């Protein structure tokens, strides 16, 4: 027997207010996916490193943010401190574990980041406990905003705005500034950039720190939506990888578009037939890869 809501939830019978709310839900979810995928994509696109520990960087961001938020009472302080701590963690990981194996088999990188993920998660459990902890919504955002036709939680609007600002800022930094030019140059031809007297090692360290910092911000922003618990990173990293693959490995534009697309896809599938809402992204990924194996914006060959 089909539950009533599945029939009642068909788009044809949905009220305008409800439809707009669901569209906004898709954007909010999409923005979260974009934020997680963006850090992954920067690190992969510019350094060729698939960072399996990215979810755990995010997890550290969530717990750091919770600690700062609890201590200071200021969520904005948490939003600043969390990415800094995670950037330092990321930089340390790059400097001391990844750097020595850049020229070795890529399998080593996968094993390394996978192992780091386990270690970081265990450490998080040792420090902050094995069971989940509530992450309160900052009081200034713990209300719904009235848009006439519908009301919407203020905190989700805040997440959409902050997410958009960060993605835009990093994108502009990478494409429009001198440092961004060097970073992209170092990726394209490491030896040539080195020969020009630019320290490529420092550049890679910077890229990894930026990618990690974005994970830290994402972790802090996600806290009030999902609460803090040890498998948060694992839960989020799989859809984020799907976003990166659909967007095209290494393409920043692709990650942004694919993230928003998947957010809407999951929410709208939920509206029509909710048991499918988690599976749909894998179906969609399979279809995209069949039609366009390199993803939406992927380059033909990824070096």
């Amino acid at each position, binding site marked *: 027997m089909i539950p009533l809501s599945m029939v009642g939830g068909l788009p044809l019978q949905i*009220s305008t207010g409800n439809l707009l709310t669901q569209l906004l839900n898709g954007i909010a979810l999409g923005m979260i996916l974009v934020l997680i995928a963006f850090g992954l994509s920067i690190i992969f696109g510019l350094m060729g490193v698939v960072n399996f520990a990215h979810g755990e960087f995010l997890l550290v961001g969530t717990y750091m943010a919770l600690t700062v938020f609890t201590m200071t009472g200021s969520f904005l302080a948490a939003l600043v401190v969390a990415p800094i701590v995670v950037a330092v963690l990321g930089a340390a990981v790059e400097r001391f574990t990844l750097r020595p194996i850049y020229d070795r088999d890529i399998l080593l990188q996968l094993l390394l980041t996978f192992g780091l993920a386990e270690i970081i998660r265990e450490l998080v459990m040792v420090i902050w406990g094995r069971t989940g902890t509530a992450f309160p919504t900052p009081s200034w955002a713990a209300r719904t905003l009235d848009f006439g036709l519908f009301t919407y939680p203020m905190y989700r609007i805040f997440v959409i705005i902050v997410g958009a600002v960060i993605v835009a800022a990093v994108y502009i930094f990478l494409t429009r500034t001198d440092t961004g030019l060097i970073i992209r140059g170092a990726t394209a031809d490491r030896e040539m950039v080195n020969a020009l007297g630019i320290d490529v090692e420092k550049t890679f360290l910077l890229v990894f720190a930026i990618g990690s910092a974005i994970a830290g911000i994402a972790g802090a922003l996600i806290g009030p939506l999902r*609460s803090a618990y040890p498998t948060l990173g694992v839960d989020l990293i799989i859809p984020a990888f799907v976003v990166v693959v659909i967007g095209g490995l290494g393409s920043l534009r692709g990650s942004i578009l694919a993230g928003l697309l998947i957010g809407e896809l999951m929410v709208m599938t939920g509206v029509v037939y909710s048991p499918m809402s*988690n599976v749909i992204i894998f179906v969609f990924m399979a279809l995209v890869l069949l039609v366009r194996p390199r993803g939406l914006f992927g380059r033909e060959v990824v070096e």
Partner: protein
Amino acid sequence: MPDGNNHGTNNGSADSTRKGTTSLREGVTDRRSLLQAASVVGGLSLAGCINNLGGGGGGGNSIKIGSPLPRSGPFASYGRNFVNAINLAVTHAREEGDAGDREIEVEFADTEGDPDRGRQAAQELINNGADVLSGNYSSAVALSIGELAQRRGLIYQCVGGSNAITGSDCRPYVFNTGNSAVQQSVTMPYLLNERGGESVFILYSDYAWAQSYMQWNRDNTVPNNGGEVVGTQAVPLGTNDWSQPVTNARESGADHIHFAVTGTDLVRGVNQAFEFGLQEESIVSAAAATLSDVKAIGIDIMSNENFYPGGTSWYWEHSAPAAQEFSAAYRDEYDTVPLNFSASHYAGTRTLLRAIGEVGSTDPDDLRSELEGKELYPQLWGVGEKYRECDHRTSIATMIVQAKQGLSQQNIDNGDVYTILDYPEDPESVMRTCEETGCQMD
């Protein structure tokens, strides 16, 4: 040590082996250490032989309990609490001679909360010589291990709310010490009667227990108490983003929004429902929130007057004397409070061990006859709870709870959170009749 005595003994033997091999490596010329090492190694392998002989034999002088529990995955935090409960049951059974003078051993295996993985874990335990099986968390796992236990001829003590376990899929060797989805359906009647309102929207996880629970509420308990279920939505297990289902529930405008969801899913679902302001127009309730869920749901939501964490199959502050005694012993030993199903696994395991003591073997048919109609020991509910003969479900009473007045963060950290509002004195009155269960055992 959170894992209790079983873990302890394991560590002990690992240490002695290590000592043995080190002395071997350091100098074979030292005759004394060589002899020591040889005796350690010999002793270990001999112990191994004895284990193998005892396993599956049943009539021997030792009993091995195989305990499949979720030690990782979404229910890992429950799993740790259950491990303690089963270890404590074994300790107390040894002290009080539940199974006569037999040695009692327990081995744990990780189900990861997943039915396929759970069946593999149970299979490993059986291969390692388990005589009986005791433990699980989810209904889906209980169903999958139950099938295996029946086929391999072992008694299996489990929990699980799905009506199928003690209904359409009931099995002669499977005994359920938890409450069923029907027994759990006490929250909505209480709320409809005490807080008023008529329309109910149910969000439920898309798996065995929650489906059973949703259907029983929709077709029986809600209409029987003057309410109407105006909508339901299945939400996949492991859903992170609840904005879509929560928006759907809000759109229904129902007086009650009810979550048939557990674990981290419930935490996220309720948090996001509050984010969308559902508590402003509706009463938000859950079917069953365990103490670890409560901590993650947080004090703001817990102490909201429009939130009810639902029914719990047991609460550690319950006034029954045996419950007080069990809670005190558990807290002394593990420095944390026992969860509801820890009471089930504790009483279920001890009752099973006493049955073995009485029939003098682990023969599944003898044990089945002994357990049918047997009162649980100890009586942690204090309502004369027993395994019903017709479906092997215990007649335990689900307690309807709400957050304590003036709940503090310290209360939450200590698991000291609930006031018991009500519970049925005659638990059989809220169970299906034997005919209604549809259980047919040979």
